[in-house]
């Protein structure tokens, strides 16, 4: 199957949860979804045997809230009252790869109380990635089988997340 056809298949599979889609590069598809729909979307890709989970990471948009002015997902988060007026979002990224094609599920999360459901029930291989995501970005992964630190020491201060933009190495 050609890369375009593979991406089209994924786009069709994910359509029920898609809040927006874009193709940043010819072999990639970014699908914007709500965090609440993550497990359903992953289950669909898994059931269709579409590719494999390549990586999970996040982005911190501290100081870059302006770029989300037109984003319906961000407006919905603001309307929910979970985000302070001067808040900035985190965005969780789940990469799935099938040959040349890469699909990224992208979800906006509030900085305070960011939480996302575990996908380990569907893909057990996500366990290490989820542990890293939660300790480095402060995104709670609910019902992940092993919530312990993977990389950070046991005595690492609570609430300090090294890959957030407000973490300054050596000055904590």
């Amino acid at each position, binding site marked *: 199957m050609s890369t375009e056809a593979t991406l089209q298949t994924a786009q069709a599979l994910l359509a029920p949860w898609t809040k927006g889609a874009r193709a940043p590069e010819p072999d990639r598809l970014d699908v914007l979804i709500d965090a609440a729909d993550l497990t359903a979307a992953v289950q669909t890709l898994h059931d269709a045997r579409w590719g494999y989970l390549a990586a999970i990471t996040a*982005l911190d948009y501290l100081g870059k809230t302006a770029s989300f002015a037109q984003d319906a997902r961000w407006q919905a988060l603001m309307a929910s009252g979970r985000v302070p007026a001067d808040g900035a979002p985190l965005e969780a990224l789940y990469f799935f790869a099938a040959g*040349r094609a890469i699909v990224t599920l992208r979800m906006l999360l509030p900085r305070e109380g960011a939480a996302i459901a575990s996908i380990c029930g569907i893909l*057990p291989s996500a366990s290490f990635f989820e542990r890293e995501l939660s300790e480095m970005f402060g995104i709670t992964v609910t019902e992940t089988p092993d919530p312990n630190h993977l990389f950070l020491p046991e005595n690492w201060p609570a609430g300090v997340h090294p890959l957030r933009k407000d973490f300054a190495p050596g000055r904590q």
Partner: protein
Amino acid sequence: MENETREKFIIPIGPQHPALKEPGHFEFSVDGETVTGATVRLGYVHRGIEKAAEERNWVQDLYLLERICGICSHAHALAYSLGVEKLAGVTAPPRAQAIRQLVAELERVHSHLLWLGVSAHEAGFDTLFMFSWRDRETIMDVLEGLTGNRVNYSVNVLGGVKADIDDARADAIRRGIDFLEERTQHYLKIATSDETFLRRTRGVGYTSREQAEELGLVGPTARAANVARDVRVDVPYAAYTDFPVQMTLDTRGDLEARFVVRIRELFESYRVVRQILDRLPAGELTARMPRRIKEGETVSRIEAPRGELFYFIKSNGSDKPERIKVRTPSICNFAVVTGTAKGHQLADMPMILAGMDPCFSCNDR
């Protein structure tokens, strides 16, 4: 009495030198000698490189990321360079791409020979360990002659490479490869026929193809369970379109298969190194790169010696990256320890760990 049988007995291994000379902590719950569960803790030498990369410029990051791992330094530098070049809309010249592939394959040879020695040592077969490490010096000399360094070859620059190959250098590489090919035949024979060695590998650490996919294994560890996935073949990068490689697969899925797949991959590397030397494209070594990289995001994937190496790079248009995510192959392959430990003898754990070719500096990046 009933309570006693329900309690788990936990054997901690590590963090100091859990079989290997790198730190990691494993907890195996056991029933007698049989393992009933395993957990992993990493990060004892975590260096925060992803964070540090956000505070350095694009050129400095090349040298920083290359130092994620001393074994597969070229893999990191290559994945990063290809990603940044893609963002900048620059393509390195064909000669540079061919030299990148050549060094990548030489690095694979050194990495697989290093691993062969480590796993032989874990199996108690120190003669094989010493032989394979002696032979590995051949490839280290080749790499030093070509790039000036034994480790962290620093052959990449953004937009190309800085090491060139003349006829004398090409002959030196060919001589090294010829010697190693003969030695590798011998190692393949040992790995598939030595009775004592086979008792440590045959049927141990078995994963079926379905299980390997479920655990998310990558690289030779997955290919030993017949998972047909190799970035060099699936998504050719550098010069792999002009100098293609064959995928090495095995259907058995046990430790023996992981030995056979890695040793067979060596032959494929020797073949493609010779092919590149014979047909090295002429021309420039570098293309011009801008200092600031235009805004955008990209994914860059390559096949490191241990499997798929995944880079996600986001640029905000300045001279520093906004975010660099590095997903190394070892973090995926650790699942083979936690996933297949159950039911094995505790004494098999070091072999199963060594069999996935773990790289702790990959994880503690």
